[in-house]
């Protein structure tokens, strides 16, 4: 199997600027092309373990510099989905984050054989914990700590894919997106974590991406059984609390975090009921990562 790491940075840059690479993440293949150095840097740094595939691509993405007069003053980057621009251009510096967001958009707006929850999902011993959360609740920080130091496997930091036919969680291990203060927190808490250059002034503030653990990438076809749904909330200095949630409330909160719940109709409802029946929900507040990790290791098995 050929991986991105088999190419030098220079070769990767050439391939990206020319025919592109068929980058395989989980079960999706993206034909990515871009002459922008920041994109090649990000791919080289964070996607070394990912296979390169030939032939069919699920998504065709180009990151290009729009040919407007503005390019001389304030250079920009545009994301093209099969030749069409789907979003407003961003400052050129945000090219790599734009790839990450664009790929999330591709999956969440198209892959309708899964119920897709906006949530991180990690696994240990075959059982998975889902961490849904609105932005700013400390979901990604917790996720990065769990997979960086807690011995959990990363299924995904953003998109929990629930297979409609068997209720299993399908991995989509990709870089973990950290924002603002979390960047420093994880840099200190997970020594040796590989992180992309922090990009400032994005719509989400300052962002940086952490490389997914090699083991999680290697196990990208191994599904997991849902067992816990933990709604995290970070509060500086707060003592840890974990309040079990009634099933109905877990259901409603999860549904609100789904991208395609109403699109899937009855099928989505049934899948989500199955997930909630198999899982225990918690409303979880934490202030210290060590304590949070200890809580996750103490999660009782659900039958």
């Amino acid at each position: 199997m050929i991986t991105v790491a088999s190419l030098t940075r220079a070769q990767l840059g050439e391939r990206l600027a020319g025919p592109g690479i068929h980058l395989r993440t989980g079960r999706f293949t993206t034909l990515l092309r871009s002459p922008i150095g920041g994109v090649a840097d990000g791919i080289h740094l964070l996607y070394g373990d990912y296979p390169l595939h030939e032939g069919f691509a699920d998504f065709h993405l180009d990151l290009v510099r729009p040919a407007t007069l503005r390019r001389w003053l304030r250079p920009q980057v545009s994301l093209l989905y099969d030749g069409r621009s789907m979003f407003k251009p961003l400052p050129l510096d945000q090219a790599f984050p734009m790839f990450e967001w664009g790929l999330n958009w591709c999956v969440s707006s198209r892959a309708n054989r899964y119920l897709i929850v906006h949530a991180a999902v990690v696994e240990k011993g075959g059982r998975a914990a889902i961490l849904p959360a609105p932005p700013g609740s400390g979901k990604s920080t917790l996720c990065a700590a769990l997979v960086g130091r807690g011995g959990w496997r990363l299924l995904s930091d953003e998109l929990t894919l629930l297979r409609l036919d068997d209720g299993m969680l399908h991995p989509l291990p990709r870089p973990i997106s950290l924002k603002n203060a979390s960047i420093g927190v994880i840099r200190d808490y997970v020594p040796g974590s590989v992180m992309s250059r922090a990009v400032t002034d994005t719509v989400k503030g300052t962002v940086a991406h952490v490389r997914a653990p090699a083991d999680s990438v290697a196990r990208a076809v191994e599904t997991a059984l849902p067992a816990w749904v933990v709604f995290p909330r970070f509060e500086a200095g707060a003592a840890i609390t974990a309040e079990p949630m009634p099933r109905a409330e877990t259901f409603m909160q999860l549904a609100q975090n789904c991208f395609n719940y109403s699109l899937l109709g009855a099928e989505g409802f049934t899948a989500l009921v199955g997930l909630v029946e198999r899982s225990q929900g918690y409303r979880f507040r934490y202030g210290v990562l060590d304590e949070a990790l200890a809580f996750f290791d103490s999660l009782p098995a659900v039958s």
Partner: protein
Amino acid sequence: MKHDRLAPLLAGALRVPEELPALDEAGWDLLLRQAGAANLLATLACLLEERGLLDRIAGPAREQLDWARVLARRHRQGVLWEVRLIRQALAEPGLPLILLKGAAYTVTGLPSAHGRLYSDIDVLVPEERLGETEAALMLAGWAGTHHDAYDQRYYREWMHELPPMRHLRRLSMIDVHHAILPKTAAMRPDPALLRAAAVPVPGMPGLHVLAPVDMVLHSAVHLFSDGEFNNALRDLFDIHRLLCHFGNDRRFWVELLPRARRLELERPLFYALRYGAMFLGTPVPEAVRAEVAGPSPGLLVLMDGLFRRALLPDHASCGDRFSPLARFLLYLRGNWLRMPPLLLARHLFHKAFLSPRKSGPEAA
């Protein structure tokens, strides 16, 4: 299936889906992108499903088709629900309701509905009851979208429809028509004739759709008199499927041409039959083909050059260097057909120089 820029993979796929299981991965990659650009991905999926071929499609391509089928299923549910609510809104004041195009195909379960995705529901009501219809829809939560005074005048004085209405909560769109062509157009098919021939929808009291011949003619005039070709191949495929479906009945072919003449729509019918046959192999009886009047041979050469490009998906793999020009000329032609030259000049001037200063994205 070889790839020719003016006869793309997608046209062949719609014509002979039976050959698709033999397509390789690179072929699927291109075909699905062309289908996506043409808004025909779900249609392609449904076509394969109807023929029992889905299981024979290569894994990753099959999965993309499955994604699209989910959209089509949800779309159908959504349309049936909206139609029910529109019907409810208009039932109490006793307003007649005829559905046009996509929504008509969906409620009658025509093959043209399978996998067809569209963004608004088109209805036809008598012009003298337009005000009542608008009021009833507003009471049920739909509101007009174009608030600019010029746009209001454009729609209400010159067009064949009200400014599009959007539901305040569900965001669904309705286009309320009182005719199928603008008041300013040279061709004036009498809407009273269309309404008189409309047929009830079984199981949905009070709901009507156009008669089969009228449905085809409306679809043809919409495609070949408009200047927008974003969904052109989809619309041509609609006509193809309508003709294949209704064409089983011999009376349909007997009625089609006389009806086209009566409604002054023979020219669009000519184009529909010609390009349907050219791209999709639409079966047309020889007698009809020989009788229907087209443009002069010289003009036909020009129109072939334009339509053969504009009917293709707007995708990098389709068309040639003349395609953008063809689309632009047909855009001008579409406006020309909609309005007399002076009015058109004024309208295009307003849209080009005056509207952008005030509004922007909602321009008509």
